[in-house]
């Protein structure tokens, strides 16, 4: 029951983008097209899951025993950065087709604060390994879900006749605000 609870809250009511306001940059930047949004989402899911596993193990088995928990932020940033670079090389070498699709978005993930946010929340919430895995996957799935939903709306909004002063980012930010109210259960 606890795992379902973690999964649903991470996916909907405590969505990483719309309630914690992490990863706003790719949320606005790569949501003009649905295809871009879905590729960004897949890349984030891949990196978040892998980096969560590595950082959780490093924290539990290295930082806690040596009482150097204060190093977690620096260590996690470096783990994410090196993981993204490594993934890019591996995808380029072995899965070139996927690299051609995701290649543009992978380096952007290094600076995506949603990744670092999820990784740090795993530690702050003191999750067990399974809980951490469920939380990471569902949070990144929540990110993908929201960015896909937002890009679908933006594609439709762009085709509509809206006042010139609202075109582009203003209407996108208003849409995001209404979505955030819905996800936080204010509407």
């Amino acid at each position, binding site marked *: 029951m606890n795992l379902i609870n973690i999964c649903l809250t991470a996916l909907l009511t405590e969505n990483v983008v719309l309630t914690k306001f992490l990863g706003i940059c790719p949320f606005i930047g790569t949501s003009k097209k649905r295809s871009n949004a879905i590729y960004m989402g897949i890349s984030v899911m891949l990196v978040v899951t892998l980096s969560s596993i590595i950082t959780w193990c*490093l924290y539990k088995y*290295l*930082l806690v*025993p*040596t*009482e*150097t928990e204060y*190093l977690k932020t*620096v*260590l996690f940033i*470096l*783990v994410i*950065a*090196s993981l993204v*670079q*490594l993934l*890019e*090389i591996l995808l380029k070498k072995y899965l070139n087709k996927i690299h051609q699709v995701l*290649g*543009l978005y992978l*380096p*952007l993930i290094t600076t995506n604060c949603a990744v670092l946010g999820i990784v740090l929340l795993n530690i702050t919430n003191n999750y067990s390994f399974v809980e951490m895995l469920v939380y990471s996957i569902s949070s990144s799935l929540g990110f993908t879900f929201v960015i896909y939903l937002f890009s679908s709306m933006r594609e439709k909004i762009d085709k509509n006749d809206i006042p010139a002063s609202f075109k582009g980012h203003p209407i996108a930010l208003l849409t995001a605000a209404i979505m955030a109210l819905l996800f936080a259960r204010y509407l």
Partner: protein
Amino acid sequence: MIIVPFLLIIVLFAITLYLSNKNKCDHNCDKCMGCNLYKEMKK
């Protein structure tokens, strides 16, 4: 034992630098954000 996390940070930093240097774009790919920014700056 306390030195291990510090060593790991240095090693990870070196790995990140090495890998990012290996992945470095020659500003000619027409695809990545870096290339587009580079072209904008050159204009």
